[in-house]
């Protein structure tokens, strides 16, 4: 089940049956919070506002809705970046808590909203701060929401990407492709240009977009370790984390062996090989 399955579809209204049995996860206003939840919500609220990024990302809002216009998530779900920014700017502990339960996960972090925002808000950024908090506090809803994404998480943690080019549906992104425009100049991307810009095998298959050098993936993992991302993930999903650590350990050994082989082959021929301590 995907994260978005929880969210009511925008285009269709709820059937009577659906209305009577609310989705597995309670949405804004319907959920009576326990005393414990209230305490966590208050802590999250304080941490959210104390985060140095908060003042940098949330500047103010004209409620113009342009962020929502380009938002792929808003097209399909009861979600909008404008709403997220409003909750960040004016919401209280309960509204923030409600958003954290589910809505924040509808965003695909494409940053279109930021490009559009005439106030200069970093909406995608503030959503990711919200996500961080929900992960750090190991919210039950977050655990449940992220559970089906083990595969994506594994890819993200080991390769750094989980989007592939065949996921792009032209009809939903009218401003992409042949009608893409650059800042001042108007230009068109012809298929010829596209073929030159993007390697043919990437245009034809998704597999190659997940190919990454061992060294890069190890560097990436080191970043996750150093910045505490791995610890965050451990709190949320210890099993997955252990699995990832195993994968990476194995790669590190392989890499060390390969480097060993390589440098003995090169010994005496060239200067020292660049050292990497992944």
């Amino acid at each position, binding site marked *: 089940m995907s994260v978005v399955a929880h969210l009511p579809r925008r285009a269709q209204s709820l059937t009577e049956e659906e209305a009577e049995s609310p989705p597995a996860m309670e949405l804004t206003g319907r959920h009576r919070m326990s005393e414990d939840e209230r305490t966590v919500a208050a802590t999250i609220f304080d941490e959210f506002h104390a985060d140095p990024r908060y003042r940098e990302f949330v500047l103010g809002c004209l409620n*113009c809705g342009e962020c929502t216009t*380009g938002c792929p998530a808003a097209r399909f779900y009861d979600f909008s970046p404008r709403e997220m920014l409003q909750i960040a700017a004016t919401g209280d502990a309960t509204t923030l808590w409600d958003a954290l339960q589910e809505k924040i996960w509808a965003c695909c972090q494409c940053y279109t909203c930021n490009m559009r925002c005439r*106030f200069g808000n970093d909406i995608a950024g503030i959503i990711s701060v919200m996500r961080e908090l929900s992960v750090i506090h190991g919210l039950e809803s977050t655990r449940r929401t992220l559970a089906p994404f083990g595969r994506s998480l594994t890819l993200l943690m080991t390769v750094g990407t989980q989007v592939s080019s065949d996921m792009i549906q032209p009809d939903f992104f009218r401003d992409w492709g042949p009608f893409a425009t650059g800042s001042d100049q108007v230009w068109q991307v012809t298929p010829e240009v596209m073929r030159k810009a993007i390697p043919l095998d990437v245009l034809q298959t998704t597999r190659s977009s997940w190919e990454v050098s061992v060294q890069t993936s190890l560097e990436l993992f080191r970043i996750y370790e150093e910045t505490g991302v791995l610890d965050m993930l451990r709190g949320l999903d210890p099993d997955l984390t252990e699995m990832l650590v195993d994968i990476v350990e194995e790669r590190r050994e392989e890499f060390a062996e390969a480097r060993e082989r390589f440098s003995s082959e090169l010994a005496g021929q060239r200067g020292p090989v660049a050292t990497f301590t992944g």
Partner: protein
Amino acid sequence: MNPVLVLGGGPAGLSAAGELASLGAPTILVEREGYLGGNPKRWHYSLLAPDLRPTEEVMDPLLGKIEGNSRIELRLSTTLAKAEPVEKGYRVTLRSAGALEERDVSSVIVATGFDHFDSRRKFEYGYGRYPDVLDFKEIEIMLHEDRVLRPSDGKPPKRMAWILCVGSRDVQVGNPWCCRMGCVVSIKQAVEVRRKHPEIDAYVYYMDIRTYGLWEDLYWKSMQEYGVKFVRGRIGQITLAEGGSRLMATGEDTILSRPTEVPFDMIILASGMEPSAGTKEVATLFGLSVGPEGFLTPRISDLNPVDSGVPGLFFAGAATGPKAIPDAITEGMGAALRAFQYARD
């Protein structure tokens, strides 16, 4: 008395020069274009908001005071090349058709005005790319000549939209200020369309309607009497629809909190006001301080909006910020009085 130099032949400059002449002061009126009248003339403004008065009724009397006036030396296609302060006033160098000429003037009125925002910079609206996306620069002349037709195929539109605040209130293009006139002018245009062509549907997309003071009346009337429809929320992008024959406007209706996608035959962008190229040049030539917006800053704008703070130098009109025509005319009068007093004393 050395003449007073008025820079700019738009409403503010015309008003200033006319007043100076009637006070008996010799005046040089410098205009970089080959004609007088500024933006209203350049873009053939149709009716003026809020009274729906033809622009000519305002511009013609202003122009009438200038033409053939023996006290006014009219210098078209001329720019200011240099300005040096002297004991009283300035020694200025005027450039016309490559020739330079030095003149001593007793004081200077800067009425260099604004330029309409170049809507191509808001590229997601496709202005300059889709022929049926227009801005204030094109729609006014269409209304003026009563030929509201789609440039793409010459057919009359069935449904039109106005998008407010294009190039205003927007840090993405570096223009955080409000243009002050875009709302009322858009509403006026929609009224002009509906008055003559009630079969055309008119929608205005807004985040705020700023028809301040008595202008509010036209806003109400536009709904009550002319059936203009207002949607709260902005269009964020325009693409082609129906095989390229129509425009698709995608936005959010922020009252209903849902994304909208509506096809239109023509879309008008309410292109805002920026300090004109001439205003920027003058700021450099006189070493004047400009605000973060690039407009000239009066010494104490609340006290005297025409006082530059520099002896013998005065401001009038949109060079100091977005301004409606009557305000520009009033400032022209104020600046004329102050310049005259300075020159005389």
